[in-house]
């Protein structure tokens, strides 16, 4: 196989991985660090995508649209936190899952009522619509480079925030033992609200940025929720580094499964069987990876809380 092709596919794997990380970032923060399972994260992602698409179409500026989407979603998240999520921090995961699943059901109907059932148009900003030549033989979508960069930036930012800032420590303290953190003088409620809003901002950012390369439609949040959760779990809940590594791993395995497995199978198996099995394996690569990791390391690659 052509080395440039292999390189390109690796790059695609990394790109997809970073995309997944972008999606998982806010979830890592809220679920991994704050230990609150917020399924409605997907709904916030959807809100970000919808608002950005609408504003971009109406106003023309993509950056402006992303900013408005983030701001508006944070506002929504603020209400959500105030009315519902705040009361869930102290509850177990199952209660959180149930209540935020309820939020999803409401959010999907609300979006349909406001924007209708059809997908929205979300266009790539003209300047980034085409490819750039990375190598003479290798054009790469300019927009994906932006996603890559933002994904990296978010990863680094999150890592620093969680592991090397006081806010990060206070969040972790509040999440593991809220009472004690309060006895140490931490305004846990306020810290949590802030982190939840930050998580929502990341969800909205992901949604706004993913809009131009994916379908902006109802249910888009649920579809990404599973891969995002897979990433967090493989990495080890609570570990930003873990989520990052896992995202890249999932991206690479998934891409490799799609790009290299079918030809490989075709060379060793009868064609009909290979045609059946190849894509089937590629489809479950992510899950096989997760199962394998958890069987070997029941608390993920980088268990944060032993």
């Amino acid at each position: 196989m052509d080395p440039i092709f292999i390189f390109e596919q690796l790059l695609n794997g990394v790109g997809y991985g970073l995309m997944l990380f972008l999606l998982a970032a806010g979830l890592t923060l809220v679920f991994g660090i704050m230990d609150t399972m917020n399924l409605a994260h997907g709904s916030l992602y959807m809100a970000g995508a919808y608002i950005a698409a609408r504003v971009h179409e109406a106003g023309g500026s993509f950056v402006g649209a992303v900013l408005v989407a983030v701001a508006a979603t944070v506002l929504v998240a603020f209400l959500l936190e105030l009315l519902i999520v705040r009361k869930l921090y102290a509850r177990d995961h199952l209660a959180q899952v149930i209540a935020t699943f309820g939020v999803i059901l409401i959010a999907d109907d609300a979006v349909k009522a406001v924007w209708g059932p059809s997908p929205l148009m979300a266009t790539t900003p003209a300047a980034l619509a085409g490819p750039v030549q990375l190598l003479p033989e290798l054009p790469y979508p300019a927009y994906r480079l932006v996603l890559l960069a933002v994904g990296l930036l978010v990863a680094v930012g999150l890592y620093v925030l969680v592991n090397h800032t006081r806010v990060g420590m206070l969040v972790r303290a509040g999440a593991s033992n809220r009472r004690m953190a309060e006895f140490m003088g931490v305004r846990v409620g306020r810290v949590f609200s802030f982190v939840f809003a930050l998580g929502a901002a990341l969800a909205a950012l992901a949604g706004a940025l993913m809009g131009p390369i994916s379908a902006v439609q109802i249910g888009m949040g649920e579809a990404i929720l599973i891969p995002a959760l897979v990433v967090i779990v493989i990495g080890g809940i609570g570990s930003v580094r873990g989520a990052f590594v896992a995202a890249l791993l999932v991206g690479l395995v998934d891409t490799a499964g799609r790009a290299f497995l079918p030809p490989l199978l075709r060379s060793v198996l009868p064609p009909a069987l290979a045609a059946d099995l190849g894509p089937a394996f590629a489809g479950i690569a992510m899950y096989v990876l997760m199962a394998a990791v958890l069987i070997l390391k029941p608390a993920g690659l980088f268990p944060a809380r032993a």
Partner: protein
Amino acid sequence: EPVKVGVALDISGPFATIGAETRDGLNLAVERLGSKLGGQAAEFIQQDFAGNPEQATQLVNRFLQRDKIDFFTGPVASNSALAVGPALFAAKVPFLSSNPGPSLFAGKQCSPYFFGVSYQNDTYDEAAGKVANEKGFKNMVLIAPNYPAGKDHIGGFKRLYKGTVKEEIYTKVGQIDYAAEIAQIRAAKPDAVFVFLPAAMGINFLKQYVGSGLKDIPLISPGFTADQDVIDAVGEPTLGMLNTAHWAHDLKVPANVEFVEAFRKKYNGRYPTVYAAQAYDVVMAMDAAVREVGGKVDNREAVVAALKKANFKSVRGEFKYGANNFPVQNYYLRVVDKDASGKLTNKLVGTVMEKHQDAYVGDCRQ
């Protein structure tokens, strides 16, 4: 007793967009008929089944046992149609498909109670294959999701396509990222690409395809991968896509001109999709049949015979049913272009096949 029509709709779930189109086309027809079928009072019982075949069977049971329906229509996907078919056939309730045309119902499991008012699934692809021949595409890459319908569509394309298939790519159902596949396409350097990726998958793929700088490799697809719903969601990147269908909104047939005008008036200037057109046709077909039997819908043999005549003003123009109750009809080539007001939409380019019949009719023994 009004005539009762059970309508199972994909209002939520994976085909929600198409379900909405179906409903809009259907409601327009109902409105134009003054909520009557063949002059009789009619009741259209519409309900969501969320695109889930199991829920669809549940709903059909209710339609049959509680509501005692006289006609059935609505589901978008083949799997739901296949799930509900047997119960309807056993109860002798005509199922007028407003979209799916699974090969089983066209062949081995054909039934006098099933009417593929729309088309048989593979025929769009057959037309696409023929277009590819005519355009002189010698090498092609074919891409579809990895499930039976995906394989059927690719099979349909290959049936008439004469060039070489460089690669058949089957993708994961519900896939979001297509970079790996797009890279494969680039590496294969085909003359054109045949795409069958329904709903969100198609939207994702098309958005990513053009961004990768492959816009010089043309795309051919069956009509639904480049219909108005997709065009509206993807925008510019669809420009120039070739696609085949048995209907186009600019098809110059009186019934169609009337339909498109009424549709655009009712729904803020939006162009109808093929799904809306089909749903509209389904209601019109029912209307004609009820009229023909003089409102005696209990006589199912008579209703079926009346339906079989296809004696209504279809928006696609005149057509006949084959032995398997699937239409023998024309297929057209459309291309995504801009209309007078600069809006992206399909433009009718020409006729690909005339009075074409599907490949499965031979398997149908009824």
